[in-house]
């Protein structure tokens, strides 16, 4: 514990599977979440490719109608509950949040470990559901179909329920950590913007996820005991389930996108070597998105028979989400203006997200609008829209973030050239996959069907080809990262010039994060460090160097 040997770090100070599975170290838990999301992503991704292959041409190609229903359900359930929800909040959040804050760990390390164990348990349930009859309800588990189908609804719902509690406990931990564990000097407005985003995310996790929990529990009770609350045959109301479900699941969209936005704020500042533009506005916009996210769920129920007045109100509130979202995007663009831009893999992902989130966000307005949504509801337009947001924005940010913090996590540099190449290829493939789906949607192709009318064939073929490019490129992105573990160059403590606290500790960090107490300053004051070629990284500027003239000289020399 008291070692100062620099070769001892959190990865190697204890060995063996048990030392990982039973660890209380937030960094190790973060890594395990990360590997778990990668495995789940490959699983959910292969479901997606199977779906696209089936849709390559009209009529039955490689799977039956029923199997197709199972596939799209499981693709959704795995990608949402096992990949995107835990991706940045649990995997990356666990790794960086305490270090960025300057704390030794999260507030409740045992609860944190319990969250991960719940995540694994939930994953086992989902996989058990796949093996014991599958699931064909769609990831939304809408009643009354979900109470009558004979697939493994109960096991899958229990899995989602358990994963929900994993998410709640992570959120609880982060909120308590940010409130109570900030070291002296770390005021709210000195917190990096990723922490603001994770805080806003955690608020959603603790307030919305329990409502999903009770909705799923009611569904189980409905199926097992026939209690009637959600069953129209017994006088119940299935739309109640939709309301409760979306009261969670709409905010859950922001559980996916808010931390991604936090990551982007970090990367745009660091890779532009510039003070973030509009720090407070970005911080407040995270909080306001979290608040507004709770009062827009009804826009999923425009066609479910809710009153027109209610739909109009939900529509109006939904439009307001555009304001804080746009504030963030404009601030990122302003941050890059006159910056010294470093086009790393992380930055390329971040730039890609501006394009993808721009499209995903703006097409959201079409569906917030009542009159257009009546036509677009349940078409491929919706499918494309939410893939642009959830995959294009959230998962691209996650991949960018993994590259950004990879040197910190493992102490090695990935191959930048290949990283750039395959990230750009993923981006191209993604656009080829999903842009045609907007056209398919506006032309009336409904979602969730395994077959389609012949006039949709060309665009579907294009989309399927795009999805193959994405599949291949993502595998190559992972391959490039994995290869660096074996033969990557040793990473310096601060390869990108970040000023947030995690760049002050070693790469990889020691078991207790910091050997010496870190100094807390402005998280985006890029003049606090300078590039040194010998180190191939950035080092802190000493006080005498802080003199503007000397600093300028040093920068030019470097």
């Amino acid at each position: 514990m008291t070692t100062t040997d620099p070769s001892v770090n959190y990865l190697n100070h204890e060995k063996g599977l048990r030392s990982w599975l039973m660890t209380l170290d937030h960094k190790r838990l973060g890594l395990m979440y990360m590997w778990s999301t990668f495995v789940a992503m490959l699983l959910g991704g292969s479901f997606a490719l199977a779906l696209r292959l089936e849709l390559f041409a009209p009529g039955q190609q490689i799977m039956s109608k029923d199997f197709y229903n199972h596939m799209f359900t499981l693709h959704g359930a795995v990608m949402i509950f096992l990949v995107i929800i835990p991706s940045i909040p649990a995997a990356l959040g666990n790794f960086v949040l305490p270090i960025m804050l300057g704390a030794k760990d999260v507030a409740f390390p045992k609860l944190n470990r319990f969250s991960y164990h719940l995540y694994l348990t939930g994953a086992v349930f989902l996989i058990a559901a796949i093996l014991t009859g599958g699931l064909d309800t769609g990831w939304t588990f809408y009643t009354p179909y979900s109470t009558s189908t004979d697939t493994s609804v109960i096991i899958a719902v229990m899995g989602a329920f358990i994963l929900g509690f994993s998410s709640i406990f992570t959120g609880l931990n982060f909120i308590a950590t940010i409130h109570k564990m900030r070291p002296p000097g770390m005021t709210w407005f000195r917190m990096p913007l990723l922490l603001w985003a994770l805080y806003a995310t955690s608020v959603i996790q603790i307030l919305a996820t329990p409502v999903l929990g009770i909705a799923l529990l009611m569904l189980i009770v409905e199926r097992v005991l026939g209690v009637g609350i959600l069953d129209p045959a017994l006088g119940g109301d299935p739309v109640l389930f939709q309301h409760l479900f979306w009261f969670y699941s709409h905010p859950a969209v922001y559980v996916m996108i808010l931390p991604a936005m936090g990551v982007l704020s970090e990367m745009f500042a660091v890779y532009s070597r510039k003070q973030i533009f509009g720090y407070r506005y970005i911080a407040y916009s995270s909080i306001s998105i979290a608040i507004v996210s709770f009062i827009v769920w009804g826009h999923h129920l425009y066609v479910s028979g809710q009153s027109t007045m209610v739909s109009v109100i939900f529509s109006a509130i939904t439009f307001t989400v555009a304001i804080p979202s746009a504030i963030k995007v404009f601030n990122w663009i302003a941050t890059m203006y006159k910056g010294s831009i470093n086009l790393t893999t992380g930055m390329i992902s971040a730039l890609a997200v501006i394009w993808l989130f721009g499209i995903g966000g703006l097409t959201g307005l079409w569906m917030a609008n009542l009159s257009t949504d009546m036509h677009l509801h349940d078409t491929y337009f919706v499918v494309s829209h939410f893939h642009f947001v959830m995959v294009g924005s959230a998962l691209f940010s996650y991949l960018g973030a993994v590259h950004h913090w990879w040197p910190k996590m493992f102490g090695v540099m990935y191959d930048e050239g290949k990283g750039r190449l395959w990230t750009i290829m993923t981006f191209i493939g993604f656009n080829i996959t999903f842009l045609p789906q907007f056209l398919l949607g506006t032309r009336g192709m409904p979602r969730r069907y395994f077959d389609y009318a012949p006039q949709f064939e060309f665009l579907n073929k294009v989309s399927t080809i795009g999805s193959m490019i994405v599949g291949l490129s993502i595998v190559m992105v992972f391959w490039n990262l994995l290869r660096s573990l074996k033969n990557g160059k040793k990473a310096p403590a601060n390869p990108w010039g970040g000023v947030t606290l995690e760049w002050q500790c070693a790469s990889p960090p020691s078991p207790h994060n910091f050997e010496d107490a870190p100094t807390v300053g402005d998280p985006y004051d890029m003049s606090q460090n300078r590039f040194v070629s010998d180190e191939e990284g950035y080092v802190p500027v000493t006080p005498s160097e802080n003199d503007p003239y000397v600093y300028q000289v040093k920068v030019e020399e470097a």
Partner: protein
Amino acid sequence: MSSDHHDPLLAHHFDDMEQQFDTNKFGMWVFLLTEILFFSGLFVAYAVYRSNHSDVFEYASQYLNTNLGALNTIVLLLSSFTAAWAVRAAQLGQNGLVTKLLGVTVLCAFGFMAIKAEEYSHKYHEGLLWGGAEHSIFKVDTNTVDPAVAEHSEYWSEVKELPPEFRRQIGIFFGIYFCLTGLHGIHVIIGIIVILWLMRRNVRGDFSPQKYDAIDLGALYWHLVDLIWIYLFPLLYLIS
């Protein structure tokens, strides 16, 4: 950030006992918030059906035993009082008293569950169940009611004369009643386990005026369980 402290009561990632206590308590309050939202889905179901069918709810409420409900309210209030007192006793280092007070709390919790079991078994016996239950007398089609239940249920003669839609909605009332009180009952059982665990730790000598976080947090949880019942009792029993 002092790197090495040797106080065994202080976890390594906290700076001092005060920070540790504050953090633990803060975490518990956040957890209680999630618990309230967990129950909220059922409260929403209650609100929706009651506003749509207030006459049904007022009528159906008479089937609940108000006396037993009131008795249970008193039992839980007493248990919350002893739980709060136990926290105070722990602050003062009166560990013997803590065990006794937690013991009373647990006895009250068992008493609550016993009374609840009595209510449930009566409901089951009389067929006062949700419409989907086999033994229910609130089926839309009166011919599908189990004749054995219909024969001995004292309410059947009255219920069978009700309009079918009205009867069906009473079934929903009982669905909500059993979900809400059942979920609350599960929380009482968890509370019993927590308090027994606290008693064991107290007897073992884990707690002192310097560190009694667990008792404080356990009592907070118990107050929430109590509080939810304080809402359930009037909403379900006292509306007729």
